[in-house]
């Protein structure tokens, strides 16, 4: 996010409040005037849905809250509700996501503009409730638009962006907004809450292109014969890629209204730096503090943060990384026995064949909420620049794992 200095106070039309990030997310969902919320409890997503059910119970939100019996049913309720024309929300984490994953793929194939907040958490086993990205990476190819937030303000802002983009008739795709469990969900941050008038300007009432209603019967979810299946998938792929300029446009419009602008690839003191970190999610904040310190000491290190994961911003990634010698990708998920964490694999593929492509180092960090601290970034940067990290020999390093 690029914004005016936050210490100046809230932007016009905003109120700054100390608020748990989960409650800020719920506040955004409320301000989006969502019609149906379906959710099943799973840590660390719970505070978001608890708050939403409270808002509905107190009449502060005119919605149906459907307390389902599983995440599979949560997403199924969302499909039924969205297909019937309601603005629909759910949120989950980890095991909940993989339980519902069957329906996650169908939601995007049916082009239903469901919005899901994913409080990122590691997948079992062993059982763990803490943050990493193994859950979201398990549905990497599900066809949803996928964004990552770095702090509470971004979670709040990106929720409006999600509905704005998902319901755009040129797009009509579900959107998954990722935030790190506990590191973001359970912390209190100062959040600039928009006056409703700003939201009303930004987000029009949802008018579905098709909806299940007897006044205009439609058939949804017909099965695909081989003669048509490939074409159906090609359409879906092209539609997801075509969403890209609209995603950017919706961020610009948000920035013009609030002063907070977003980009698919954010850079921080990256201009001309020979070694670049690449992060997704909340560790980007820590990384920026580390970069500040290292640059003060005259070290040639910068930071690139990936906000938009799908559709993947190829050109922006190339632009951001092309001038560097070293790119250090911090992956928060493993691909066992594979070519590296999911992010580094895609970064390598994106840079492949470029003249003077930087060397990509992959550090798997922060599994199940293990802290990634400022000095960890410094240590990793030192290993890479000193040649201690073996160039070209290790596809990935599981950082600081005890033998």
């Amino acid at each position, binding site marked *: 996010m690029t914004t005016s200095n936050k210490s100046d106070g809230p932007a016009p039309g905003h109120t700054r409040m100390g608020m748990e990030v989960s409650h800020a997310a719920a506040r955004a969902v409320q301000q989006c005037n969502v*019609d149906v919320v379906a959710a099943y409890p799973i840590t660390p997503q719970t505070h978001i849905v608890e708050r939403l059910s409270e808002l509905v119970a107190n009449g502060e939100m005119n919605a149906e809250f459907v307390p389902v*019996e599983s995440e599979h049913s949560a997403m199924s309720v969302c499909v039924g509700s969205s297909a019937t024309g309601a603005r629909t929300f759910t949120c989950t984490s980890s095991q909940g996501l993989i339980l519902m994953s069957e329906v996650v793929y169908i939601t995007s194939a049916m082009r239903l503009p469901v919005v899901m907040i994913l409080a990122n958490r590691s997948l079992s086993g062993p059982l763990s409730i803490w943050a990493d990205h193994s859950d979201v990476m398990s549905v990497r190819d599900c066809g949803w638009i996928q964004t990552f937030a770095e702090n509470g303000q971004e979670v709040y802002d990106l929720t409006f962006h999600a509905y704005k983009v998902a319901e755009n008739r040129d797009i009509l795709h579900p959107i998954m907004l990722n935030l790190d469990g506990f590191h973001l969900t359970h912390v209190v941050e100062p959040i600039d809450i928009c006056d409703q008038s700003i939201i009303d300007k930004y987000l029009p009432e949802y008018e579905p292109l098709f909806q299940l209603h007897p006044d205009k019967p439609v058939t949804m*979810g017909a*099965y695909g014969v081989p003669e048509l299946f490939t074409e159906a998938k090609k359409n879906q792929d092209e539609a997801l890629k075509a969403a890209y300029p609209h995603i950017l446009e919706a961020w610009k419009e948000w920035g013009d209204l609030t002063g907070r602008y977003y980009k698919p690839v954010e850079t921080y003191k990256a201009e001309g730096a020979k070694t670049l970190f690449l992060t997704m999610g909340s560790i980007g904040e820590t990384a920026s503090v580390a970069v500040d310190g290292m640059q003060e000491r005259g070290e040639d290190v910068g930071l690139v943060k990936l906000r938009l994961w799908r559709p993947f911003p190829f050109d922006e990634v190339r632009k951001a990384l092309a001038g560097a010698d070293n790119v250090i990708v911090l992956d928060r998920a493993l691909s066992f026995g594979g070519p590296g964490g999911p992010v580094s694999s895609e970064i390598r593929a994106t840079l492949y064949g470029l003249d003077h492509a930087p060397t990509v180092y992959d550090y798997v960090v922060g599994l199940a909420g293990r802290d990634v601290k400022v000095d960890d970034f410094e240590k990793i940067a030192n290993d890479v620049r000193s040649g201690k990290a073996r160039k070209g020999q290790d596809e990935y390093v599981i950082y600081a794992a005890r033998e």
Partner: protein
Amino acid sequence: MQDFTVYVPNLAPKDEEFKPGHRACQGCGLALAVRLALKASGKDVVVATATGCLEIISTPLPYTAWGVPWIHVCFENTGATASGMEAALKVLRRKGRIPDRKVKVLAFAGDGGTVDIGLQALSGALERGHDLTYMCLDNEAYMNTGVQRSGSTPYGASTTTSPAGTRSIGQHTWKKNMPAIAAAHDIPYVATCNPSYPYDFMKKVERSFEMEGPAYLHAYSACPTGWHSATELSIHIGRMAVQTGVHPLYEITNGKLTLNEVPEKLQPLKEYMKLQPRFRHLTDDDIAPIEERVHREWESLKARAAADAGA
């Protein structure tokens, strides 16, 4: 007294919302069940369907046999999909975003999609009290995948995964009593129905929509392909299922059970089984204990109905 029954067919709606041209097998019981259900629901309905025969016969992209709004998502979630549709209709009506009238919600799933893999989603929908009708189209095995046994396959039936053999009688467990499981959710309306009794069938669909809250209908659906029975006998087999006591017709309204068809004397079970080669390996000695259990359950239903009538 004048016999009015000849006029009765004129009372059934002529509209066909399950359109001809679909790809069901000859003698398909569930196609008839769906046709009757939509006659009873009328046009003001939205329909959810599980993966299975019904979805496959009616919607090969880009064709559809559905004259009413229809959705298929996947196999085990029909209760949940329908819940979402009901919740959306409720809130959109409240907010004035759709016309202010009741739109019915109707869900169809097979026996596998109901009593096995879909039981959890169905239970959730019934427990949460959504205003919808869920109909299980029970043809007593996974027919769409090639006649594998389900929790709804009757004892002694030979299927592709419970084949009769020298050391097997075929299905060796008793059919899951799904209407009783639905009724245990204390919902307003549970009924068994059978397209061989079309007026009783349509009346029950209508009643299910008159009651506010969840309703569960268990529809017997003959399957010549899976049962290896003659296609022209489907209606007859359906009637025999009721007349032998295998599939009694009853309804449970606000907890009170009523029998809708009480044969003077139950027909011999063998007369039902011999029409269906899935039972052909059974000897008289095999059938006797099955018949005994069918009779015992029938008697207990009668006793329950009598007790509820007296209460």
